[in-house]
């Protein structure tokens, strides 16, 4: 079953603009992770935020986590054409299996 639900399903922006993607989930989590997927093959881990953290940065990426609303957002600043990809959130449930449960993803297109 899907735990995370990304919003929007698709996003198209111009190079240099910021892109914001949101993720909502249902159960209490241990951590939430964001991944990028190019061309429908392997995923690349971007960032992990633990349940006791509220914000995390990595380069042009900023992730926030609101456990009271069971939601997270991924902000990509100053986007580039190379950021075009699908972005997935994944959650590890608290007290449950070690496996991550992935959402269906947001397809981001950055136009040059």
């Amino acid at each position, binding site marked *: 079953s*899907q735990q995370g639900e990304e919003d929007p399903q698709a996003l198209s922006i111009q190079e240099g603009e910021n892109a914001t993607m949101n993720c909502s989930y249902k159960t209490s989590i*241990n*951590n939430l*992770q964001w*991944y990028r997927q190019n061309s*429908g*093959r*392997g*995923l*690349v*881990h971007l960032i*992990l935020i633990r349940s006791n953290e509220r914000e995390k940065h990595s380069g042009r990426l900023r992730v926030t986590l609101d456990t009271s609303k069971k939601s997270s957002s991924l902000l990509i600043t100053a986007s580039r054409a190379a950021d075009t990809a699908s972005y*997935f959130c*994944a959650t*590890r449930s608290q007290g449950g*299996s*070690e*496996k*991550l*449960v*992935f*959402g*269906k*993803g947001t397809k981001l297109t950055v136009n040059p």
Partner: protein
Amino acid sequence: GAGVSQSPSNKVTEKGKDVELRCDPISGHTALYWYRQSLGQGLEFLIYFQGNSAPDKSGLPSDRFSAERTGGSVSTLTIQRTQQEDSAVYLCASSPYGGDYGYTFGSGTRLTVV
């Protein structure tokens, strides 16, 4: 190795045949996962191995699917009597330990059942 290696990268098989997909995780990673992704969809969990513990098989869709991990390293996912709905990209990932670390994914095996 430097990354997670999956083979073959593409596999076309006839309906009813058995297939084996291989995953070679990063050396030293104790956790290994199999997911599948149908066209334009998210990732569906299949099975999780952690060290010598019994695997979490809760995601396997039917008894036609099985997986093993030999010597805590290489894993093989076997699909018996393949059906057209088994067509998908099968992704393997490994991590140093469980879900508290990011996963490193392989490039996947694209399975097409004709």
